[in-house]
C-alpha cells in the first residue's frame, strides 16, 4: 500500500543523494589540476524495497559510504618503476653534463691545447737551446700544463663533494617522506575501518610513493589492513605500518655511503643495493664515472711526468749538470714543475749526455718527440689518449641524455594513461553537474507534490 509519508522519504533520499553527488562532482572539478588526484564517483543504488502487506514499497535512493576512486594499481606500479629509472638518468645526466663542461675543449682552451703548447715549447727550445725567452716560455707552458691537470682534478673531486651533499640531502628527504607515509597509513586505516574510503589520503599517499620512487628504488605493497609497507635496498624496511626506519650517510674513504639504520642503531651499508632513483644516479656518477675519469687523468699525468723525467734526468742542463726531475707530484692532483727549475730556467736540460752546452739540444728534441711515442693504454699517444677520453665523456653524456629523453617520454606516456583512467574531464563533470542538478530539482518537485497531496488530505479532514 503506497504511503504519502513514504513519498516524502523518497524525495528526501533523492535530495540528499543528489546533493552528495554534486558534492563529489564539485570536488572533482576543484581538483582538475591537482597532481596525483584520482577522480571520484558516488556509487548510487536503489533503496531496498520493503514488502508490507504483500505490496512492494520503494524507499528511494541511497549512496554507498565508500566513494569510488578511479585508479589502476597495475598502472601505478609500472609508473613507480619507470619513475625510479627516470630519477637515475636525471641525476646522472646532471652530474655528467657538469663534467663535460669542465673538459670543454670545443673552444680550444683545455688540456689538449695545454699539451700541444707544452710539446711545441720543447721544439722551440730545441731551435735555440740557450735562449732565455725559449726557456721562460717552456717554463710557463709546463706550469700551465700542470695547473690544467690540477684544475681538472679538483673540478672532478669538487663535483664528487657536491654529489655527496646531494646524497645526504636526499636521504633526509627520503626519511621525511617515509614519516609522512607512516602518518597517512594510520589515517587511512582509521578512516577505512568505519567502511568509508579514505580517497584523499590514498591519493596523497600514492603521490608520496610516486615522488619517493624518483629518489630511490622501492618495493611497496599494501597489506590487508590498508597499511602501505615500503622496503628499500635489498629488503630493508623503510615503512612498515606506522613505524619507519631511517637512512643515514656515513663517510667511507672520502665519499658518503648510504646506510640503513635499524631500531637498535646498528647500521647496514646499502649503497651497492640501491639500483634506481636519483640516489643511484648520483652514486653511479660519483663512484663509477667520476672515479674512472680521475684514474684516466692520473694515468695521463703520471705517464707524462715519468716519461719526461726519464729523458730529462738523462740530459744536461746549461751548467753541464745532469737534469733534475722536471715534474714533481704523485698524480694529476699535485703535478707541478720542479721548484728548482721554476726558480732557475738554466736547470732545464736541453742537451743530451755527451753533447756540449749551451748548443746541445738532444734532450729537448727527445722530449719533444715523446708526443709521438705511444706509451698509453691501447698503444696511443698522450694526445690520442686524452682525445678518446674526451670522446668517452661525450658518449657517456650522450647516452645519459638519450636514456633520460627516452625515460621522460616513457613516464610522460604512462602519466597520460593514468590521466585517462584517473584524470578529471571537465566536460564529463559538467554533464554530471547538469544531470545531478536536474535530479535534485526533480526531487524537490517530488517533495512539493507530496506536500500538496498532504495539504489536500488535510483540507478534506478539516
Amino acid at each position, binding site marked *: 500500500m503506497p504511503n504519502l509519508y513514504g513519498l516524502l522519504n523518497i524525495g528526501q533520499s533523492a535530495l540528499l543523494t543528489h546533493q552528495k553527488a554534486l558534492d563529489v562532482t564539485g570536488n572533482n572539478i576543484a581538483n582538475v*589540476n591537482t597532481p596525483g588526484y584520482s577522480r571520484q564517483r558516488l556509487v548510487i543504488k536503489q533503496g531496498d524495497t520493503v514488502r508490507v502487506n504483500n505490496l512492494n514499497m520503494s524507499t528511494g535512493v541511497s549512496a554507498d559510504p565508500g566513494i569510488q576512486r578511479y585508479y589502476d594499481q597495475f598502472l601505478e606500479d609500472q609508473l613507480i618503476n619507470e619513475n625510479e629509472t627516470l630519477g637515475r638518468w636525471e641525476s646522472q645526466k646532471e652530474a655528467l653534463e657538469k663534467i663535460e663542461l669542465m673538459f670543454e675543449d670545443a673552444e680550444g682552451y683545455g688540456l*689538449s691545447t695545454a699539451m700541444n703548447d707544452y710539446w711545441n715549447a720543447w721544439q722551440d727550445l730545441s731551435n735555440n737551446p740557450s735562449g732565455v725567452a725559449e726557456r721562460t716560455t717552456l717554463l710557463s707552458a709546463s706550469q700551465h700544463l700542470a695547473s690544467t691537470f690540477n684544475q681538472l682534478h679538483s673540478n672532478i673531486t669538487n663535483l664528487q663533494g657536491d654529489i655527496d651533499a646531494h646524497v645526504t640531502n636526499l636521504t633526509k628527504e627520503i626519511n621525511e617522506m617515509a614519516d609522512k607515509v607512516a602518518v597517512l597509513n594510520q589515517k587511512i586505516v582509521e578512516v577505512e575501518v568505519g567502511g568509508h574510503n579514505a580517497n584523499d589520503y590514498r591519493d596523497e599517499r600514492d603521490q608520496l610513493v610516486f615522488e619517493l620512487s624518483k629518489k630511490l628504488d622501492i618495493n611497496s605493497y599494501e597489506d590487508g589492513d590498508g597499511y602501505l609497507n615500503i622496503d628499500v635496498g635489498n629488503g630493508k624496511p623503510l615503512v612498515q605500518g606506522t613505524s619507519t626506519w631511517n637512512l643515514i650517510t656515513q663517510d667511507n674513504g672520502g665519499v658518503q655511503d648510504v646506510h640503513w639504520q635499524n631500531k637498535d642503531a646498528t647500521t647496514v651499508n646499502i649503497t651497492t643495493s640501491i639500483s634506481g632513483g636519483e640516489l643511484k644516479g648520483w652514486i653511479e656518477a660519483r663512484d663509477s664515472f667520476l672515479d674512472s675519469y680521475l684514474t684516466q687523468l692520473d694515468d695521463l699525468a703520471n705517464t707524462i711526468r715519468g716519461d719526461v723525467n726519464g729523458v730529462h734526468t738523462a740530459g744536461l742542463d746549461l751548467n753541464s749538470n745532469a737534469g733534475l726531475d722536471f715534474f714533481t707530484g704523485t698524480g694529476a692532483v699535485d703535478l707541478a714543475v720542479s721548484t728548482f727549475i721554476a726558480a732557475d730556467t738554466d736547470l732545464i736540460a736541453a742537451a743530451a749526455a755527451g753533447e756540449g752546452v749551451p748548443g746541445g739540444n738532444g734532450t729537448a728534441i727527445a722530449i719533444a718527440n715523446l708526443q709521438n711515442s705511444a706509451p698509453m693504454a691501447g698503444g696511443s699517444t698522450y694526445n690520442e689518449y686524452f682525445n678518446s677520453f674526451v670522446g668517452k665523456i661525450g658518449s657517456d653524456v650522450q647516452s645519459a641524455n638519450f636514456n633520460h629523453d627516452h625515460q621522460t617520454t616513457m613516464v610522460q606516456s604512462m602519466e597520460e594513461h593514468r590521466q585517462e583512467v584517473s584524470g578529471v574531464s571537465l566536460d564529463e563533470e559538467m554533464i554530471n553537474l547538469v544531470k545531478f542538478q536536474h535530479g535534485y530539482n526533480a526531487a524537490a518537485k517530488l517533495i512539493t507534490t507530496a506536500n500538496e497531496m498532504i495539504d489536500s488530505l488535510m483540507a478534506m479532514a478539516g
Partner: protein
Amino acid sequence: MRVTNKLMADKVNYQLARQTELMTRTQEKIITGKRINRASDDPSGMSSVLSYRSTLSGLEQFTENITKGKLHIDSVDSVLQTTTDLLREAKAIAFDPAPDRRAELAAEVGVIRQQLLDMANYKIDGKYAFSGDTTNTTPYNSTTWTYNGDGGTKDMIVGKNMNTSVTADGRQIFGPDGDNMFDILNDLESGLALDDPVAIKSQISRIDAAVDRITSVRAKNAGVNKRLDAAENHYAYYKNSVEGMLSKTEDADVAQAIINFKVQQTTYESTLATSSMILQKSLIDFLR
C-alpha cells in the same frame, strides 16, 4: 581514449618544452657556426676535432722549426760563400803573381786570415755557428789557431720523429787542426816572408782542398735546405687539408640549420595556435 583536461595541458606543456629545446639547440649551431658545441653533440667527432687541432698545432710548430732552420742554413751559406771568396783571393796570392811584392802580399794574407777568422767565429743570433754545441765558446783565436769547440751538430725537428742536422763542427768546415785554413794561410804568409816560391806554390793544392771541403759542406747544407723546402710545402698543403677536415667535422651547415630552425619554428607556432584553440573551449562555454 578518454581525454582529460590535465592531460591536454600536460601534453601541450611537454610539446612546447621539447620544441623550445630543439630550437635552442639549432640556434646555438647557427650562432657558433659549429655543429659540435660540446663533446656529447658528437663524441667521436669531438675526438677527431681535438686530434685535428693537435695535428695543426704540430704542423705550425714544424713549419716554424723549418723557417728557423732555413734561416740558419742561409746564414751559414752566406758565411761559407764569403769564406770561399777569401780562400780564392788567397789562392791567387799563392800563385806568386808578383815576386817583387811578396812582403806586401804577406800583409794582405794576414788581412785575409783575419777576415777568415771573423767568418769562422761568425755568430748567428748571438751564438757561434761553428763551435759545435758549445755555442758560446769562440771556435778559433789568433794565438793557437786551433779549434776550441766540440763535435756537436745543429739539430732540428722537421716532422713527426723526423730530425735533421747541419754541420756545426769547425774542423769539418775549416779543416782539421794542423791543416786548417788558418794553418795554410800561416804557411803562405811565412813562405812569402821568407821569399820561398816552393813553399808559396805548395799552398795552392792545400787551398783547393780547403775550398773543396767547404763546397761539399755547402752542398750538403743545400741538400738539407731542399728537404726543408719540400717539407714546408708538404705541410702547407697538409695543413690545408686538415683544416678542411676540421671544418667539415665541426662546422655547422648554417643554411641547413636555418632551414631546420624555420621548420621547428613553424611546428612551435602551430602547436601554440592549436593549443590555444583546444584549451580555450570546453562544455562550460556552451552551458549558459
